[in-house]
């Protein structure tokens, strides 16, 4: 199986989701090394980083202004041109991957397999449906399998540099795509934070509507600081304006699976559980003893969060 993995990165560093998707890609590839496409602008460092991941056979490096922001139109065109000879084209199910890969699939006249959490066979995949309330196993009959991978379901591939085989070869100038010119990047608004990345953090502290206000929500930052944790939020908290949307955990936000997930003032709607119930240990703090979050929590504390959170901070 010849598998091509599309790297997610920011032109400076490889996103952790890429190493996780590589693990899934390797399962599809069998014994064959995986090829990785690094498309971006001035992103040679990312290509080198990708070449150092265990299981990567070669890196295709496409560099140019047209790929600077990995817009779907030029990326899908580039990938469609590279599809020949590949059995699978795989990407992490990040917002970038979700934007590009269905477009690619349609260009190739194949059906995408989105957000997989398991590889049963090179043509058979496991994926959540209905916000994770059901798990579907599907087999694709398409000539090229176009797949996105939920990162939390796969461990990241290891870095092999200095520990065995030489890094993979890098082929520069891989593919070229004309800019279809139908879309243009205007601006990125990235929230600066010194907290770890939500999708890959070992500990996540999440707040819900129970926090009551944006100011109160900020107290989670202190607790997260003590725990070295990322901060997350329920959709209710985001909708209420307590937290920005990029912190949203759930069906329509991010899926996370940290070692420790602390849900504070979150009732536990199924749409929220969809994004966090694969966490190793779940802690719930809520004053409502009947809140559904307690049904999935390993440790539940029925308490007023405005007393419990400072008490927790003091204990740490």
């Amino acid at each position, binding site marked *: 199986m010849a598998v091509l993995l599309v790297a997610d990165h920011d032109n400076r560093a490889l996103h952790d989701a890429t190493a996780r998707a590589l693990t899934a890609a390797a399962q599809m590839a069998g014994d064959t090394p995986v090829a990785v496409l690094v498309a971006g602008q001035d992103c040679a460092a990312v290509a080198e980083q990708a070449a150092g991941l265990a299981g990567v056979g070669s890196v295709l490096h496409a560099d140019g202004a047209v790929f600077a922001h990995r817009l*779907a139109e030029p990326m*899908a065109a580039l990938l469609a041109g590279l599809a020949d000879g590949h059995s699978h084209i795989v990407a992490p199910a990040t*917002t*970038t991957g*979700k*934007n590009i*890969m*269905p*477009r*690619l*699939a*349609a260009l190739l*006249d194949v*059906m995408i397999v989105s*957000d997989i959490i398991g590889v049963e066979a090179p043509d058979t995949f496991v994926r*959540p*449906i*209905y916000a994770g*309330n*059901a*798990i*579907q*196993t*599907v*087999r*694709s*009959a398409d000539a090229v399998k176009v797949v996105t991978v939920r990162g939390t379901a796969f461990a990241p591939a290891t870095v092999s540099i200095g520990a065995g085989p030489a890094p993979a070869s890098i082929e520069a100038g891989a593919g070229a795509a004309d800019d*279809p*010119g*139908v*879309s*243009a990047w*205007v601006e*990125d*608004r990235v929230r600066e934070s010194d907290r770890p990345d939500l999708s890959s953090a070992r*500990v996540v502290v999440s707040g819900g509507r129970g926090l009551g206000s944006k100011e109160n929500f900020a107290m989670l930052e202190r607790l997260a600081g003590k725990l070295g944790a990322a901060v997350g939020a329920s959709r209710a908290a985001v*909708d209420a304006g307590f937290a*920005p*949307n*990029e912190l949203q955990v759930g069906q*329509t936000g991010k899926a996370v699976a940290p070692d*420790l997930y602390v849900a504070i003032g979150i009732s536990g709607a*199924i*749409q929220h559980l969809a994004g966090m119930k694969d966490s*190793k*240990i*779940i*802690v719930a703090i809520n004053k409502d003893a009947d809140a559904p979050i*307690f*049904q*999935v*929590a390993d*440790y*539940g*504390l*029925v*308490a007023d969060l405005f007393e419990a959170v400072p*008490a*927790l901070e003091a*204990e740490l």
Partner: protein
Amino acid sequence: MKVLVPVKRVIDYNVQVRVKPDGTGVNLANVKMSMNPFDENAMEEAIRLKDAKLASEVVAVSIGVKQAQDTLRMAMAVGADRGILIEAADAVETDIEPLAVAKLLRAVVEAEQPQLVLMGKQAIDNDMNATGQMLAALLGWGQATFASKIELADGRATVTREVDEGEQVVSVALPAVISVDLRLNQPRYATLPNIMKAKKKPLEVKTPADYGVDVTPRLTVLGVAEPPRRAAGVRVGSAEELVQKLKVEAGVL
């Protein structure tokens, strides 16, 4: 400018989903069905464009079983001018794949010539998050996915997108496909008089054969299972006890 809004009939988002004992799917018989929540946002945005005189006509289209006409009537009750139903399945369990839906929508676009397709970013049943991107590809149009803000001017749409890192603003040339996120707007409710009026709005019924589109699925569903259940754990009495358990028992601190 005409706006096309595809709407999908899905299980109501408040209904507890139950997997069928035979593992072929989820139970959709005698279950409350509603318009896909993201499609409600798309419809709301289209109506606002019409209210702002930026759109001249809003056409709703639904692809699925004949009961999807209820979804179209709801779309017309909140403001769509007319509806197109493409009856593509007989059994309520049948889900038409995004690729086939995109091909049908391409045919509708070619017939209707809208300048903008506004649609939900994903359906809450199959959670594929694919149809908008696929439609844009088939039409050769630009796409802006996961929109939380849309501004139209000078033949382009400036769209704020919800992305993992925060927000990204892109500008797409019209015609374009825009897929929308929940924070775009607050959908209105249909009033009773408008529900009554919607019954008189035109609703055209078509089949995939009318458009020459084959809706045979590419993916074979081998099985649908319940997710692994988490057993409820223990209640602790204090923050102190919680920290102790996390350190000693769980070993995560």
